[in-house]
């Protein structure tokens, strides 16, 4: 049983008649994703890739049971579409769009928290449980080049680097349990801690790779979570960008930026905290695969 997405996870596709969905939906179903229905306002009654499309989420839910809704909706309509799924009681909402306004993301995440909805994204490139199902663009036309079924969970703030890490794991013969692109935006639904909590419960996952980035304190949160015993399997982490810390920094334009961060968010600090929590730190990309091998021996 993979986290979040398995071969029997019932998936709703919002924005099903748009160009992105028309292009990607067949690649998802071909891979094994169980897409039960689509939603597109005003387009009820159409079929996309053999999947029935409804005019509203509530309409789709009258006819289908849904575990997760993936949004192929353009950024400017994400707030409305996500709130529709949240209000209708869809348990997990996965938002792919890049460029969702901060105020919209904030509003939908606030409502999701009130309703107990699990949100991934915005700006998530996708999610894959290799050999079972995939959502969004990740893996695209060449999923078997990048992914193979196995026991390493991969979580990344960067969609590109997540894919690159999976590619090199697969090339080394190391399969993945589930890969999740968290999304690179400031405000996102789930981060490392939420994924680690799920991977902890997943018997198929024996180790996790996290790819972090400068800024925010998502990696720091993960370090505290691991240190407190929330995650007990081995973890490998890569967080590039330490060189910015010693380069001449741009003149600050406001006090708020400095007050908000107050020393948090720097890659060196993130790596130090994670290392103290027992995480194996890949200072360079070529260290990721050997450290994962080491982690799997420990596991």
């Amino acid at each position, binding site marked *: 049983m993979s986290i979040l997405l398995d071969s029997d996870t019932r998936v709703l596709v919002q924005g099903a008649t748009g160009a992105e969905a028309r292009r990607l939906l067949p690649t998802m179903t071909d891979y094994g994703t169980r897409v039960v229905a689509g939603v597109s306002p005003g387009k009820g009654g159409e079929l996309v890739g053999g999947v029935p499309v409804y005019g509203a989420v509530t309409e789709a839910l009258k006819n289908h049971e849904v575990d997760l809704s993936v949004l192929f909706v353009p950024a400017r309509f994400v707030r409305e579409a996500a709130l529709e799924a949240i209000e209708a009681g869809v348990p997990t909402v996965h938002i792919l769009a890049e460029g969702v*306004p*901060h105020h919209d993301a904030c509003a939908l995440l606030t409502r999701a928290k009130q309703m107990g909805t699990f949100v991934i994204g915005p700006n998530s490139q996708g999610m894959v449980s290799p050999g079972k199902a995939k959502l969004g663009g990740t893996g*695209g036309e060449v999923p078997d080049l990048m992914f193979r079924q196995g026991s390493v969970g991969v979580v990344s703030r*960067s969609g590109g680097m997540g894919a*690159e890490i999976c590619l090199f794991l697969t090339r080394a013969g190391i399969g993945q349990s589930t890969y999740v692109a968290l999304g690179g935006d400031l405000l996102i639904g789930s981060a490392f801690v939420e994924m680690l909590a799920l991977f902890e419960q997943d018997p198929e996952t024996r180790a996790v790779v996290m790819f972090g980035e400068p800024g925010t304190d998502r990696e720091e949160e993960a370090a505290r979570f691991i240190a407190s015993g929330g995650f007990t399997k081995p973890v490998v982490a890569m967080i*590039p960008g330490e*060189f910015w810390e010693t380069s001449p920094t741009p*003149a600050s*334009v406001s006090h708020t930026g400095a007050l908000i961060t107050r020393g948090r968010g720097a890659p060196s600090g993130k790596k130090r905290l994670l290392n103290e929590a027992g995480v194996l730190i890949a200072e360079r990309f070529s260290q990721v695969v050997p450290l994962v091998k080491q982690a799997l021996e420990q596991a």
Partner: protein
Amino acid sequence: MSRLLENDSLTLLGEGGLPVPRYEVCTDSNEAARAAERLGGRVVIKALVPVGKRGKAGAVKFAASADEARAGAEAILGMEVRRFPVKKLIVMEALDIKREIFCSISFDAPRKCPLILFSAEGGVDVEELAEHHPDKLLEWPVNILEGLQAEDALELAGRAGLSGGLAEQVASAVCAMYGVFCAHDCEMIEVNPLAELADGRVVAAAGVVQLDAQALFRHPELEAKLGVEGGNGWRPFTELEMRMREIDAIDPHVGAIRFSEMDGDIGFMVTGGGYGLSSLEALLDEGGRPATTFDITPGRYEEKMRRAVKAVLSKPGIKGLLLAGNVSNFTRVDIKVAGVVRALKEAELDFNKFPVIIRYAGPGVEEARKLIAEVPGVEWHEDEASIEDLARRIVARAYGRDER
């Protein structure tokens, strides 16, 4: 950059109901003198530049008369503040400030909500205050669905130690700021100082408004104010950066370019945020000196790639070019490579001497391989090449340390 200049920031705050000082924008010293007369003689003259800490750079002057204003304006015009030449001034009525308050609103990533930062002891040293007396900086999260209620703002002011009429005026100012924050899709608003004047009024003596670049489609009137004066946020754009902006503008709907010029000599065109950052770190590690950074969002952007590569190759002193991207999911790499190949052919360089190293992987890679074969000497890699392999190769070849 999506930060408004001070005059536009104050206008927005004023329209939102926050009292702001009277001011005028001037481009020469005589105008400044006339503005000072209209504003009552006693004025503050500040450089209108898109960076902070102008006072510490000597770009803020007080004047008690029109003549002093003229002299002050002359001194500031022509100055450079953190590499930005001063071409405009803001002449503002002088305020008799009794107390400086700090207030800002931005988004808090961990709590996923708007966060008000507030201190009854504002001013330029608010960071030091926060470091030594963290209790004097209040954090006030706001539920975006409920908004900021007047009584909450009053409680905030009270907790910060303000009372009576002052607390009420400050609370109403904070509510006005929050209104502007939401109405204009702001990423951050900072008023420092929010000034209590000797006559009892509360006024935003200085303000910074930063818009959300991802929400500008809802605010075309504000987007028009952003212009190129802000540069990359900490220095003005270079000529090459301006040229790349023109290239990006040939088609606003396909492949948005992010570019910056650096001091080095290796053309670094590695796309993908995380992949680019990891590659830059590896390049620096190997002793490489990047001349550029470059990113382009997915799309059919052959022509943009052609022009972008030519622009980078035109940079004086360039010793080599690294073009790479993380394994692609959908974007066909042959489209990117077609543009690159056209640029390389037109450049008429000997690529056995001028190293060009390319790595792409994903759909379209076979077609891309054939296209690259048309340009002799270009070094081509696919999914087997790691970030560090590529950094090592370009550094070895560009700096004549070829280990082949």
